[in-house]
């Protein structure tokens, strides 16, 4: 073997070793996946540009023709815009010299012009105008314009496929991606329907930036085990009820999507006793909210789950917590950072009372949320704790011996299913 070939093989082995999952069941995850630039680059190709639908917008964010929104698929800047024919999505990069074309977060424009040389595109992303394309007469001289071979039809913005389901807009780079309904799949679809069963209105967004890897956040939203242990708000104020009924359901095709629900028991049990019996440092005596309105819940579903958390891989987490309704968009920002954008919404037919409660309950979720602020704290602790030891692995064993159990909230089954799906998607 030549020296070069040997080196290539060693490098390949090293690369493989960096992302070796020692167990096929997703129970041991090598920490390198949270900080390796190589892994990150591969994710951009195989996940965000691979056969997956990426959540990019709520349709009600861009209700009128020519309304647009700048966002991302993975770390690629894209623009989503409503056109006369539906919704278009294109890479926000001029076909001329690569400048970002659309510089606003939101707006309404019938065409988009790159400021650098004023190349102009329709909202479908087709090139419409190039200044001095045919040259210019200067005195007696004709200054030559764009190359003769230049064909505007070949220099439009790079387009993504777009599909929408009940007001959720998704985009994909890949021709291989199955139809959106099949991608969401039969286990997840009824639960998407549960939240998106009638027209919604956009109430604004909040943005949170975390110094940790995006997959740590997906682990978090697939982890009912942490809920009553990390988030002590409910237990401190004697609200979280042990004995609530729970669901933890993975997508059966690849395990990348999942659902967690929690529903109050009809008859309350004493939470304090349940926790103190197990000597868990959660329950503190003597605290009560002076104004508990924030924890109310107006009945609005057949089953009024207190929590419904549903990641649709890779960029969406659907959330209903009490009366808050949110589409969280998860965006990777390099291996060590992610941005989380909470898109709050209500239903068009909300009563004033219900709308007021939705807004009051933004106190529960988002960057300052009583029952969510700890999540990014936890993911950053993992990021800081694992950055050096890429070869070491986590141990994800809760509920391991009951992989078919889907009614437990002390399980890590969804996380394991996620990692096996991730391994497959990444070819590890």
């Amino acid at each position, binding site marked *: 073997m030549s020296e070069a070939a040997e080196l290539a093989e060693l490098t390949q082995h090293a690369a493989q070793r960096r992302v070796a999952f020692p167990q096929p069941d997703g129970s041991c995850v090598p920490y390198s996946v949270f900080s390796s630039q190589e892994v990150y680059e591969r994710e951009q190709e195989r996940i965000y540009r691979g056969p997956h639908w990426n959540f990019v917008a709520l349709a009600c964010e861009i209700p009128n023709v020519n309304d647009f929104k700048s966002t991302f698929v993975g770390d690629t800047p894209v623009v989503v815009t409503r056109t006369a024919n539906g919704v278009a999505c294109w890479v926000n990069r001029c076909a001329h010299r690569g400048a970002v074309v659309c510089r606003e977060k939101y707006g309404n424009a019938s065409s988009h012009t790159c400021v650098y040389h004023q190349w102009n595109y329709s909202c479908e992303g087709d090139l419409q105008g190039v200044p001095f394309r045919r040259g210019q007469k200067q005195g007696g001289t004709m200054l030559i314009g764009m190359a003769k071979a230049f064909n505007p039809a070949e220099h439009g913005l790079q387009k993504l496929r777009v599909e929408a389901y009940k007001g959720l807009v998704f985009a994909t780079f890949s021709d291989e991606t199955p139809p959106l309904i099949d991608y969401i799949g039969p286990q997840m679809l009824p639960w998407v329907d549960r939240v998106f069963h009638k027209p919604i209105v956009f109430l604004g967004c909040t943005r949170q930036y975390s110094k940790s890897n995006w997959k740590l956040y997906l682990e978090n939203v697939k982890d009912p085990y942490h809920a009553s242990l990390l988030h002590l708000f409910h237990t401190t104020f004697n609200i979280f009820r042990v004995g609530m009924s729970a669901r933890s359901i993975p997508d059966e095709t690849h395990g990348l999507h999942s659902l967690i629900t929690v529903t109050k028991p009809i008859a309350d049990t004493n939470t304090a006793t349940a926790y103190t019996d197990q000597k868990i440092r959660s329950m503190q005596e003597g605290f009560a909210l002076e104004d508990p*309105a924030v924890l109310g819940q107006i009945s609005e579903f057949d089953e009024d789950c207190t929590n419904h958390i549903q990641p649709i891989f890779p960029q969406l987490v659907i959330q209903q917590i009490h009366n808050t309704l949110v589409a969280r968009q998860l965006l990777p920002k390099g291996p060590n950072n992610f941005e989380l954008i909470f898109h709050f919404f209500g239903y068009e037919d909300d009563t004033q009372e219900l709308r007021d409660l939705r807004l009051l309950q*933004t106190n529960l979720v988002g960057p300052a949320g009583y029952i969510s602020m700890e999540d990014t704290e936890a993911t950053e602790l993992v990021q800081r704790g694992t950055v050096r030891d890429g070869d070491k692995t986590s141990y994800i064993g809760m509920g391991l011996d009951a992989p078919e159990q889907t009614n437990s909230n002390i399980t890590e089954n969804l996380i394991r299913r996620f990692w096996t799906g991730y391994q497959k998607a990444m070819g590890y």
Partner: protein
Amino acid sequence: MDKHLQCWLELNALQHRYAHAIDSGTLEAWPDFFTEDASYTIVSKENADRGLPAPIIYCRNQKMMRDRIVALRHANIFEAHTYRHALGGLVIDEMNEDEVKATSSYVVVSTGAAGDSVVYQAGCYRDTVVKRDGVWLFSEKRVVYDTSRVQTLLATPI
């Protein structure tokens, strides 16, 4: 002294006492700067400019403010940090005998456990201030933040 200038000085003093209470960690004193039925809202400039209501914190009375502090002290988990508010640009928008509307700017520098100080948030206060028993109190405080990306989390009030 000119009535307007007198009022500006009093509001300025109020703003500084308010920031001092937060920066020195005496958060239990924070709700006392408000009337019982006051509202306190932190909302992004992005939402405020678009007329969208979603806040990150919304207390619709003083009780909710006290609840927020009890939760921070006893329930919520976050990295220990210190705020320093830099205040400025106080402008009186409207002035009556007992009610004043004012706008001012703030910058909050936050220092975490590792010892890094970062500009955590910049924005403005849109306040309604009322005089009760000779004392100025906030009856409405809207904190409109420019720094739309909240770094990690927001625990301590602005």
